[in-house]
């Protein structure tokens, strides 16, 4: 139990995917200009991460024990096709849910945070539940970082920022400050 909690908190705050591993930066910088889109993208990513964790666990347990060298290629192919399949399924079953996060699904599949999750979980030898918890922590952490940046960017829109700094440069510097703040979470678990 302690272990699961540590995995969750570690993925959520201490080793936040975006702010310490720099994974999923493309959507982080591209989409985070409005709070609502960010929240929806975060939700969709968390969902894909959960699917990924299950896929990675199945592949690792049943296929890749015999052929570890196929890991990378099978991760990509299986994750992409599963997500596509689920996308079709959601479209059929719940148009409302599809409208909320459907358009993001194909985009997310090529996101390095997804592949990173699968690879990190494998490297650390996570089991089924550990993988699920890890995916949950990473997904919520991703959403958190995205929403925080979007909020800050919305504020910055209204301020008087030098023209040179506008755009990616400013976003990166904001992200740097956020990342600095998140460093404060390190050691959260060790003190207990």
């Amino acid at each position, binding site marked *: 139990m302690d272990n699961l909690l540590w995995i969750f908190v570690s993925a959520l705050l201490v080793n936040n995917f975006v*702010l*310490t*591993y*720099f*994974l*999923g*930066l*493309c959507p982080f*910088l591209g989409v985070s200009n409005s709070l609502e889109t960010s929240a929806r993208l975060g939700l969709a990513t968390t969902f894909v991460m959960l699917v990924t964790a299950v896929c990675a666990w199945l592949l690792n347990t049943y296929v890749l024990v015999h052929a570890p*060298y196929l*890991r*990378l*290629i099978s991760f*990509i*192919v299986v994750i*992409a096709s599963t997500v596509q399949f689920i996308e079709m399924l959601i479209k059929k079953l719940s148009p409302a849910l599809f409208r909320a996060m459907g358009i993001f699904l194909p985009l997310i599949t*090529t*996101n*390095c945070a*997804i*592949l*990173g999750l699968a*690879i*990190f979980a494998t*490297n650390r030898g996570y089991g089924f539940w550990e993988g699920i918890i890890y995916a949950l922590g990473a997904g919520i952490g991703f959403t958190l970082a995205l929403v925080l940046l979007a909020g800050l960017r919305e504020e910055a829109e209204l301020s008087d920022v030098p023209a*040179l*700094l506008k*755009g*990616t*440069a*400013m*976003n*990166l*510097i904001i*992200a*740097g*400050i956020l*990342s*600095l703040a998140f*460093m404060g979470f390190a050691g959260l678990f060790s003190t207990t």
Partner: protein
Amino acid sequence: MKQNVSREEFLKGIWRDNPVFAQVLGMCPMLAVTNSAINAVAMGMATFFVLVGSSFLVSTFRHVIPKQVRISCFIIIIATFVTIADYTLLALVPGVHKELGAFIPLIVANCLILGRQEAFASRYPTKLAVMDAMGMASGFLLALFSLGAVREILGDGALFGFKLFGENFEPWVIMILPPGGFLTLGVILLFFNWFKTKKDEFLEDVAAAQRSEG
């Protein structure tokens, strides 16, 4: 003329269309592995190998691959090259491989590589595609190296592991930690923007001067 065209394809990737500074692509590995110059260079070389190899294959077989499955084919080709790079690094330089860790397989998800296949290699002849890939990859390598060098010098007082300053140098540790990556790249982009604005202004001045003369 032909020679000029391919040289142009090569050079544009290094400066004008630099994948990192101008197009802001491939950020994940860009920031994650640039905490020292040696890591940055190893990552840059691996990306170079993957990008040039994939572009060569994609461009050579561009008439054979049906449009409907091209993305899947690109990904298979890229993933194969990445796996090769991964195992080669693991065998030859295990120390560097350990430092880069999971970020080598993640080259697959580098939008720069897939982007070049889609936008360039699948449309142009092999020679041009390889030149374009080499240019883009060199530009990426250059960007990785400059970021890695700045962060290592400031954060560790060293370059490629050689100490540059005396004992009294207090390293600015934050620079080799994640926030340093964001901040350094932000400042570099700032300079890039500044340079571009100045250049545009200069070109406009020249054009205006020419107009008034004519």
